[in-house]
C-alpha cells in the first residue's frame, strides 16, 4: 500500500461528493429531520424518545453510509474505472482505505450535526459525554460503509444494490433490541441477534447515552464494532479481483 495512492482515492471521493451538493445535503439533513419527527411523534411520551433516540442516532449514519458506499462502489465497478485503477500501481487496500477515509470524514460531519441538533434543540439527554456518542456513531458509520463496500460486490445493478438495504439491514434492525428488548425474543432470534454487528452498534449508543461513565459492556460493544469494520473491509478487499472473466 502507498500513502499517496490512498490519499488520492480519498480526495477524489470527496471531490465527487462536492460536485453533488444534493447528496451532501441529504446526508446531513435527513438524520436531523428524522430525529425531529421522532421527538414530536413521542411528544407525550418523552421517555421513549430518550430511550430510543440515541439508538437511532447510531443507526442513521450506518444506514446512510451503507447505501451511499454500496452504490458508489458499484458505479466504480460498472463504469470500468475500477478495472483501470487495478491496472495501475495501486493496492486494493489503498482503494478501500481511501473510500473509508472519505466517507468516514463525511460521517463525522453528519454525526456531529445530528448530535448537536438532538442534544441542543430536541432535548435529548445524554448522561455520559456527547463526545462518546459521536465516537459510537462514527464507528457505526464506518461499519455501514465497510458492509456496503463488501456487499456491493454481490450486486450487478444499482437496483440490486439498493435491495441489500431491506435484505441485510432491516433484519438486523428488527433483532437489535430497538423494537423489542432482546431478552423477550424467541431464543433462536437471540442467537441471531448475538452475531449481528448492528446489535452491538445500537447497544453501544444506548449505553453511552444512559451511563455516566463508559462501562465494561459499552467497551465490549465498541470493541466488537471496531473489529467488525476492518473485518468487513478485508472481506471487501477479497471481492476486488484484479483478474475477472
Amino acid at each position, binding site marked *: 500500500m502507498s500513502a499517496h495512492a490512498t490519499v488520492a482515492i480519498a480526495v477524489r471521493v470527496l471531490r465527487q461528493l462536492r460536485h453533488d451538493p444534493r447528496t451532501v445535503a441529504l446526508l446531513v439533513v435527513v438524520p436531523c429531520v428524522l430525529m425531529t419527527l421522532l421527538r414530536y411523534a413521542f411528544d407525550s411520551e418523552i421517555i421513549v424518545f430518550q430511550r430510543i433516540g440515541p439508538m437511532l442516532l447510531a443507526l442513521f449514519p450506518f444506514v446512510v453510509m451503507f447505501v451511499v458506499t454500496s452504490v458508489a462502489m458499484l458505479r466504480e465497478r460498472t463504469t*470500468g474505472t475500477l478495472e483501470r485503477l487495478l*491496472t495501475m500501481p495501486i493496492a486494493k487496500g489503498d482503494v478501500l482505505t481511501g473510500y473509508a477515509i472519505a466517507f468516514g470524514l463525511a460521517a463525522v460531519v453528519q454525526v456531529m450535526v445530528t448530535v448537536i441538533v438532538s442534544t441542543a434543540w430536541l432535548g435529548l439527554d445524554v448522561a455520559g459525554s456527547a463526545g462518546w456518542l459521536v465516537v459510537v456513531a462514527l464507528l457505526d458509520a464506518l461499519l455501514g460503509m465497510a458492509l456496503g463496500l463488501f456487499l456491493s460486490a454481490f450486486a450487478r445493478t444499482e437496483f440490486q444494490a439498493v435491495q441489500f438495504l431491506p435484505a441485510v439491514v432491516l433484519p438486523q434492525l428488527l433483532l437489535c433490541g430497538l423494537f423489542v428488548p432482546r431478552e423477550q425474543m424467541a431464543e433462536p432470534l437471540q442467537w441471531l441477534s448475538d452475531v449481528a454487528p448492528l446489535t452491538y452498534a445500537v447497544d453501544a449508543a444506548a449505553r453511552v447515552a444512559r451511563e455516566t461513565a463508559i462501562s465494561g459492556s459499552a467497551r465490549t460493544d465498541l470493541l466488537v464494532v471496531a473489529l467488525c469494520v476492518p473485518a468487513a473491509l478485508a472481506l471487501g478487499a477479497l471481492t476486488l479481483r484484479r483478474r475477472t472473466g
Partner: protein
Amino acid sequence: MSTIEARDLTVIRGGRPVLTDVDFRVEPGELVGLVGPSGSGKTTLMRAIVGVQRDVTGTLTVLGKPAGVAELRRRVAYVTQAPSVYSDLTVMENLRFFAAVLGLDADEVRTKIDAVDLGSVADRRVDELSGGQRARASLATALLGRPELLVLDEPTVGLDPVLREELWRQFHELAQEGRALLVSSHVMDEAARCDRVLLMRDGRILADSTPDGLLRTTGAADLDAAFLRLVEAGASR
C-alpha cells in the same frame, strides 16, 4: 527483448474458447493494429496483456515479465473501450486523480490535457462533454507518465476525421520515442495507419503482416477485401 510475446495463448470463458492458440510479438517502437469484427476477441486479448483477464493459458510476457505482475502496472497503460473516467468530475480533476495515483505532478496533467486538445474544456465535468471528448479524456489518462507499452481499445471510435488524424499522428510520435502501441479497431482503414496489423476473427489471428504485405499476399485492392479473402481461405481449408 520484445515488448509483448504471446505463445499458444488461450482463454476459455463459460466453456467456450474466446482466444485460441494466439501467437504474436510486439517490438519496442512498433505501432501494431489489432483489427477484427466485434466479438473476435480483441478486448479479451488486450485484457490478458494488461493482466485483468482470468483463465489465461499459454505464455504471455510483457517487457520480459509475466503479464499482470505488479511491476508492470507502472510501465503499461490501458484504455478501455468505454471511456473509464469519472463522469461527475471535471477533466482536470480526473487527470489530477490518475496522476496522483501514479505519483506525478500538475505539469504532467496540463501537458496531457493539451495533447488530446481538451484545454478549452479542462474545467468542465466529463458528463457535460461529447462522446468524443470523453474518449479523449480517457486517452489522456493513459498518456500520463512514460508508459513503455500503451494498450488502447478502440481509441478513435466516434471521433471526427481531423481529430482521428491528429491522434494517429501522436500514436506514431509515441512509437518513434521507442514505446510500443497496440491499438484495436473494427474499422479496416485504420489498419492502414499501423506499422503492422494483426487480423483477428473468432479468437484466432488470421494474419500478422504489414498493411502492404496484406494487400500483396491476398492480391486484394483494399484491406476490407483482403480480410474477406483471408476469411474465405480459412473456411475452405
